[in-house]
C-alpha cells in the first residue's frame, strides 16, 4: 500500500508537471509560430474574398445555411434567424 502511495504521489507530481509543461510549450511555440506566419505568410487570397463579400453586406449562402442549421439545432427549432450582421 505504501509503495502504491509513493508511486501515486510521484505520478501526481510528474503527471501534472508534464501536462503543464507540454501545454506551456504549445503556448510558447504557438505564439512563435504566429509571429513567423504573420511575418512570412501573412495573408491569403481566400481571406481577401471573405472581406470583400462581407463589406458588400452579402453573406455566403453556405455560411448562411450553416448558421441557420446551427441555431436550429441549438434551440431545437424554437428560434428563427431573421437577419445576420457582423458584430463590431
Amino acid at each position, binding site marked *: 500500500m505504501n509503495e*502504491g502511495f509513493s508511486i*501515486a504521489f510521484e*505520478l501526481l507530481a510528474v*503527471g501534472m508537471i*508534464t501536462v503543464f509543461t507540454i501545454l506551456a510549450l*504549445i503556448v510558447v511555440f504557438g505564439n512563435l*509560430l504566429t509571429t513567423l506566419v504573420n511575418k512570412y505568410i501573412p495573408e491569403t487570397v481566400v*481571406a481577401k474574398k471573405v472581406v470583400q463579400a462581407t463589406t458588400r453586406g452579402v453573406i455566403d449562402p453556405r455560411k448562411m445555411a450553416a448558421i441557420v442549421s446551427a441555431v436550429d439545432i441549438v434551440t431545437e427549432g424554437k428560434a428563427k434567424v431573421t437577419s445576420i450582421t457582423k458584430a463590431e
Partner: protein
Amino acid sequence: MTAFGNLFHSPETVIMIIIGVFLLYLGIGKGYEPLLLVPIGFGVILANSLGGEMGVVPSTDEIMHMSLLEVAKNYGIMNLLYYSLIKTGLLPPIIFMGVGALTDFGPMLRNLKLAFFGAAAQIGIFTVLLAAIAVGFTTKEAASLGIIGGADGPTAIYTTIKLAPHLLGPIAIAAYSYMALVPVIIPFVVRLTTNKKELKINMKEMDKLYPNKRPIKNLRAMKILFPMMMGGIVAVFVPSAVPLVGMLLFGNLVKEIGNPTERLYKAASGGILNTATIFLGLTVGATMTAEAFLNFKTIMIIVGGFVAFCFSVAGGIYAVKIFNLFSNKKINPLVGATGLSAVPMASRVANEIALKHDPSNHLLQYAMASNISGVIGSAVAAGVLISFLS
C-alpha cells in the same frame, strides 16, 4: 437448444440484461451519448445472452498465444473483435483520428493562454488515483479509474486496455455516462466553487480592454502548421501519448488542408469513425458479463469516476481564480470549468451558464480553447500513466 436452463443456473445474467436495457434507455430515451451507449447497451445484452458465446472472456496466456482464427473458433466472433480491435489498442486511436477531423483548433489558436486551464483540469485524474489506492485498488487499476476524470472516452478506454483491461467495461460505462452528464456535473461544481460576480466576468469586454497582442493574420496556415508543431512537442516529451495525440492531429490536418485531402477528411470523420464507434461500443459492452461487472470494484469505479470528474472541473475553476489574482485581464471561471475534455458539450454548458448571468456574455469560443487543450492534456496525462505503469 434454448437458454432457459442456463438462465436458471445463472440468474445474475438477468441483472446484466436489465443494465443493458437501462443503458439503451439512457441512449434512446434520454439521448445521453446515444452513439456510444446504444452499442454498449446492446453489447451487454448480447454478452449475457446465455449460450450465444458473445461475452468477452478474460485474457489468459492460452488466449494470448492463439491465432485470431482459433480465438474465433473457440470463443466466438465477439472475442475475435475484442482481441483484434480492442486488446491491440487499435480502435481508440482510430476514434481519435475522427475526433481530430471534427476538431477546430481555431478557438485555441486565438486564445492560446487559455490552454493552461486544460492542464489544470487534469488534477482530478491524479487525485482520484491516490484515493483509489487508499480504498484497495492496485496502482494500475487506480490509474485507469483516475483517467475517467479526463472526461475523454477513447483516452479512458485506451489507458484501461493498457493498464487494467479487466476493468474495461465499468470504466467505459462510467466515462461515457459522466460525459453525458456534463450538463448536470458542471453546473453542480460551478455552484459550489464560484460566485455571481465571477460568473459575470465578460470575456469580450476584457478583450476590448486588453486586446490580443498577437492577432493571427493567416488562420489557415496556422491551422495547418499548428498540429504538426504540437505533434512534434508531444512526440519528443511523451512518446507514449503519440498513438492518441498523433492520430488526433493527423485527422485534424487532413481536415485543415481542405480540398486536396477532402476525401480523407470525409472518411476519417464519417465512415471510419462511425465503424470504429460501433465496434468499440459493442465489444466494450460485451466485456460486461455478470462475473466481470457485478462486484464491489464496479461500484467504486462509478463513485470514483464522479469524484474525478468533479475534481477536474473544480481544478480548472480554481486555476482561473488563481490566475485572476495576478492578472488585470480577468477570466470567467467557466472557462476553467471546461478544461476537462467532453468537447464541445462542456463549452456549450459553460456558455449557457454565462448567458444566464449576463445575456451578452458569449464565451463559447473562449471555453472551446480550454476545452480543446483539455483533450490534449488528458491524452498527455494518459501517456504519463501508461509509460510509468505498463
